[in-house]
């Protein structure tokens, strides 16, 4: 079952490569939250209920409901145009995302470690690199935040890959990280939106003190 869920996770990564509306990015992030909850629920079935509730909070409440809602709020408040405006054409994007998945598969194949769930490692590495790729090639600040969230999802899968125990502290760390990053970047985007009206990263290089 986890194999299928992680395959669907990888399909959402491919879809991120071609999606060209901000609203589809947000819905992909929400779907990824649900998938991550499914994977974590199946993998961590024997842990105590406190941890389970915590993971439920982290995946469903934060990743699926709170963050997409907050991102939608930022987009509406700042009147950000709905295109993602990549630097590269979408066809190249999807070829690169496919290449990323194959490369992470080959890389995880080269690592001989009995403790490592291979399919988890493939999914997490490809999510990490896809997030990086989205950050590098998209023009808006809000898509940078979304790329960062994809990286966070990859880290979450990676923490599932290294074994069944995911200590409470790691959970809290991840949660705080997500919360702080989205919140701060949201405020940042809001302030820039107030001052500059346009959210193009290119224009930030024109800033002088």
């Amino acid at each position, binding site marked *: *079952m986890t194999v299928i869920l992680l*395959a669907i996770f990888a399909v959402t990564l491919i879809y991120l490569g*071609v999606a060209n509306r901000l609203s589809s990015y947000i819905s992909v992030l929400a779907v990824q939250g649900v998938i991550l909850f499914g994977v974590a629920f199946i993998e961590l079935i024997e842990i105590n209920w406190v941890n389970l509730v915590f993971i439920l909070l982290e995946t469903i409440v934060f990743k699926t409901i709170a963050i997409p809602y907050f991102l939608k709020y930022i987009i509406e408040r700042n009147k950000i145009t709905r295109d993602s405006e990549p630097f590269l054409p979408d066809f190249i994007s999807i070829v690169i995302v496919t290449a990323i998945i194959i490369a992470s598969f080959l890389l995880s*194949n080269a690592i001989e470690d009995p403790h490592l769930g291979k399919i988890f490692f493939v999914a997490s590495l490809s999510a990490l690199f896809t997030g990086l790729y989205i950050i590098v090639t998209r023009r808006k600040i809000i898509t940078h935040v979304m790329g960062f969230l994809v990286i966070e999802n990859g880290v979450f899968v990676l923490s599932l890959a290294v074994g069944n125990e995911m200590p409470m502290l790691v959970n809290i760390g991840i949660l705080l990280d997500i919360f702080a990053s989205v919140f701060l970047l949201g405020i940042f985007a809001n302030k820039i939106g107030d001052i500059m009206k346009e959210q193009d990263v290119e224009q930030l290089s024109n800033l002088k003190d």
Partner: protein
Amino acid sequence: MSIVSFLLIIFTSLFFTGIVIRTKSIFSGRKGPGFFQPLKDIRRLFRKGAVYSKTTSFIFQIAPSIYFASVLMAIFMVPFGNQPGIISFQGDFIFFAYALALGKFFIIISALDTGSSFEGMGASREALYSLLVEPAFFILMGSFALLTGHTSFYEIFGSLHFGSYISYGEGTLAAIVLVFIALIENSRMPVDDPKTHLELTMVHEVMILDNSGFDLGLILYSTNLKFAMYGALIANFFLTPGYEWYYSLPIFIGVQIVFAVIVGTVESFMARFRMNHNPQYIFMLTSISLLIFIGVLILKKFV
């Protein structure tokens, strides 16, 4: 030797487009044409003679027949659950793909034969799209050949281990990819609009602008046959192993109906893509089938 899948596909092809059109008219709130209207159109076309332009050569005249024959040839190879198709041999899925490609090649050169600039444009688009679909189909069938260890349609579908959730998951993903492949190969909505009226935006329709009468009827009926053929391939992923026809037959018909309703729903609710968005959309299918391939590699512990 089994003729049952051939007969079933011919039978479902009679109703397929009718179901699609009914779905579309229900969703758009129209009364819509009758259930058998596409068949009546084709019958009317079959009773007419064809008109040939003076600039065309014999290629234009033989191409629709070859196209129809290639689709029939491909249908001969589709199995029905545990029963092989009329023709079945090792590696027949490769022959299946290239029989279809042969028909498409003849339609393309007949479009070029007319000397119309619009038709050449449509032919180039059609060639590009089927070129991009091909790796998706081969990676998909290749991964199922790897999963089961057999290389013909009949053996692959016969020995898929149903009952374990993994093969159902892989089968569902493969069915989704096959639905998209069928939509693209039949030039339906997200890639091409069969109802468009502007030659510049057509793909498949512009290639058959000069065909008339009997030839046009053949081409239209081949589209029905192709839909039913892909529906049969999709149904094969869900058929029960063994000879229990009283399970297999309702599943087959049900999958065909669901497939037709999906096609109608997609055509009702999706706008067609911009022309330059089509290649990346089709390439996405290759990526998804690569994921299926990686899943099979991990399942079979090859890595």
